[in-house]
Every structure is written in C-alpha cells, then in structure tokens.
C-alpha cells in the first residue's frame, strides 16, 4: 500500500513540485485531491509562470485603473487576468496577454496600429467605437477597390523558441460585398527572410466552399494569416498581411478589430 504523498510532504512542497510542470498540468492536477487543489492555487506557482518582464510590460499601460488593478492582484489573479482579458499597452493601440496553457506572451495589434491602405480617406474607411472591442476604435470599410492591411510586430517582444500564428480579427457589417466572389491573399513572414507562404482564401465563402474563418467566441471572427517561428527574438520584425488587389470588384462592409498574435496550438 503506497503512502499518500500529500500526507508526507507539506503543501508548500507540492506547490513547488507543481511549479516545475506546466500551467496545463497544474490546472489538471486540481482534480487530484483537495490538497492538490489548494497547492495548485499557490502564488509561487503562477508567479513562476508569469514572464519575467511582465510587470515592466504592464507598467506601460495607459490606464491608471488598469495599472492599479494589476498592482493589487496576486500573481495567480494576474496570470489569469492576462490570459482571459489582457491589458492595453502602447497608448491603447495594443493588447498584451498570456496564452493560458503555456504562459507565453500574446499580443493583439489594434486596427489603429495597422497599416491599412487609404484608411484615412473618409469615403473608404471610417473609425468606429464598438463596445465589443477591447480597443477604443475599430476600422470599418465603407468601400475600396484595393484592400491592403498590414501589421508589423517586433520579434523581440515575443516569447523565445515559440511558433506564433497571426490572425486577422474581424467581422462583417450587416451589408457586405466583394468577399464572397473574390479571395484574399494572406501572408506572414519575418522581414529578413523570404520564407512564408501565401494563402488564398475566401473571407465570406458561399456554402459550398470551405470556411477558413472561425468564431472566436468574443463576438469576432478570425482568419489565420500565417505563422512564423521566433527563436531568440533577434529576427527583426514579423510582417502580417492581407491583400486583395483585384481592382475589378469593390469591397465593402469589413470591420477590422486588429491582428492577433499568439502561440500555435493555443486554442
């Protein structure tokens, strides 16, 4: 009859042991027993899973409420807050969070931070405030002939040794056109390399064509732009792009929240 580890080792020890596993393993182990559940909620564990520069990144937050909230949170609370909600940084143009399963960094670049062709021409695009967006503004397409959306992120702010996937986060206005008949080109690459595939998909396909976009669960859709591997963060910038430059069809009714960058397999 094997001895019960929880009756031999103090709970602190169990927490220390769990901190050497992974966020997913720790959460699963909450089901093991009441002692494991309690040990799994220890700040020691979640503090270890937070990125080492986490507080530095958050201190960049424009909102003092946000700063106060995060300052008063335990490490455990902060970890899950960053996973579930994220924090706005860089003048509110970017959202910073963590991937729950691994603790790796995630970022969403808001529409204001992207390079969108003709975005400042009022007949083409307008800036809107939508309550379901984490950002103060989203970009709504009124009409363009040539669609070109680009987001650029520095690899040095990302977690090392990680494959990242970039998604365009968007939805359609009640009336839209141009996206069912014409596909868009999606591409992600590290600026210093020529690698990176271009995918061609329909954003608004008719029912007999495969759907590449999916619901995110927060009211928005997302479509994968591509992926890249970040080794040490010294590869310069990753460029994520969506284009449809067939000038024969006008495009209307696309609403862009931003470009989401997160570790592969995170959802």
């Amino acid at each position: 009859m094997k001895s019960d580890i929880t009756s031999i080792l103090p709970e602190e020890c169990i927490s220390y042991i769990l901190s050497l596993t992974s966020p997913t393993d720790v959460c699963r182990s909450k089901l093991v027993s009441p002692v494991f559940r309690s040990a799994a909620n220890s700040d020691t564990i979640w503090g270890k899973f937070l990125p080492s520069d986490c507080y530095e990144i958050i201190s960049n937050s424009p909102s003092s409420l946000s700063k106060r909230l995060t300052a008063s949170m335990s490490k455990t609370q902060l970890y899950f807050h960053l996973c579930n909600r994220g924090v706005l940084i860089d003048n509110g143009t970017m959202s910073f969070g963590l991937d729950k399963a691994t603790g790796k960094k995630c970022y969403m670049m808001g529409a204001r931070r992207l390079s969108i062709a003709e975005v400042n021409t009022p007949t083409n695009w307008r800036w809107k405030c939508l309550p379901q967006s984490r950002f103060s503004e989203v970009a709504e397409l009124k009409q363009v002939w040539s669609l070109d959306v680009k987001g650029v992120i520095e690899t040095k702010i990302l977690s090392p040794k990680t494959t990242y996937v970039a998604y365009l986060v968007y939805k359609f206005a009640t009336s839209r056109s141009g996206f069912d008949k014409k596909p868009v080109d999606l591409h992600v690459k590290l600026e210093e390399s020529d690698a990176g595939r271009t995918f061609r998909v329909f954003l608004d396909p008719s029912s007999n064509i495969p759907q590449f976009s999916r619901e995110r669960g927060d009211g928005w859709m997302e479509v994968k732009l591509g992926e890249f591997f970040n080794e040490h963060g010294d590869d310069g910038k990753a460029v994520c792009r969506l284009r449809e430059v067939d000038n024969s069809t006008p495009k209307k009714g696309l609403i862009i929240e931003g470009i989401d960058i997160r570790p592969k397999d995170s959802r």
Partner: protein
Amino acid sequence: MSSSNNSGKVLKLKSKDNQIFEVEESVAIQSELIKNVVEAGCDIGVIPLLTVHSKTLRNVIEWCQKHVDYVEENDSGSNEEEIKNWESEICEEGNNNGSDDEETKNWESEENNNGSDEEEAKNWESEGNNDGSNKEEVENWEWEENNDGSDEEELENWESKFVDVDKDSLYALLLAADYLSIDSLLERVIKQVADVIKQCRSVEEVRQTFGIKSDFTPEEEEEIREEISWID
C-alpha cells in the same frame, strides 16, 4: 592542486535512529544547516539530525560527496591559478631552447627563437605547450578544456540514477534535503517528482502513482471541471 579547503576535519552526524556517521567537513557543509552549525562553532561532539533516518542520511552523504568531488575535478578557478603558476615557472626556469623537440616543432610561427624567456612564455601560453615540469598541470588544464561538456553530462546521469528510487525513498530524500538545506538535492528530487506528474496521462494515474485518495464531493469535482474546461 585541488582547491578544496579540506582541512581534513571530520564531523560526526547522528541520524534519528542514533547511528553516527563520520563525514569530512567539506562534504557535510554542502548542507546549509550543518554549515551554520559549524560557523557558529557548535560542531563539537556530535551533530544530531533529528528527522533524518540513517538509510536516508547515508544517501544524502553520498550525494554531497559526489558534488564535492565534481567541483574539485572541474573547478575552473584553480585552472587559472595553474596557468599563472605555470607561466611564472617558465620564466624562472630560464632558457629551454632546443631541449624539447616537441617544443621546437611547435614553434612554427617563430623562425628565430632567440630564447628570451618572456617570448617563450608567450609562445607556450598560446600554443598550450608542455615544458615537462608542469606536465600534470597542463594535462589537467587540457583535460578540462576538452571534457567540460561530458563531465556535466556524467554528473547529470549520475544524478538521474540517484533519484531513480521508490516513492517513499524519494519523499525521505526530499524532506531530508529540505531540513538540511541542500539546494542541489532538493531541486533534483523535486524535478524528479514533477517529471513523473508530467508523464501521467490522467488524474487517476496521478492518484494511483502517488497513493492519493480523492475525497471531493461530486459537486466539488463538477465545479473544478467547469473551471478547467478550457483545457482540451
């Protein structure tokens, strides 16, 4: 040549079941607890370790001895000292021009060896040359240069075998390492248990492996499942 401050002093450690172990001070002070006792001057007679059974203590001592041996064999600090000693000895010994065929062959870059001591020392330094009287030092130096990686690996393998024991022994080691404050042992044992947990494929497997009884009510279990439903 060894850099350990082995004053040869031997400490007496008493296990919980009253067995006395005689251990060299340099080995025993791997334990912060014992180190503090020694520094406080309380290491007269026998040091009682009230919570550590002799079976575990024996293993702990073996761990400490291995780590002391490893540090002595690989202390790069003493190598720098060796090189400095070697250089100054060469200068003192005077002109060795031509007395060593190997040396002569290795002076490829310098055609005209005028035998000035400083120049010789510099050549020898850059070529790693053995002038015979310091052969042992040079051998160790070169050996260290060439074997750095594999020694670390050897230690890791040894440590892995050391912690490959039944659960009860593992817990005893953990508690002893914690009580005695031996960081290297504590970390290695904890990592071992963590690795076992990572390999378990289900909650039930964790329970079986570690002898845990779960006394959640069905409601509590449901609550937790809800909480971790994000895991696929």
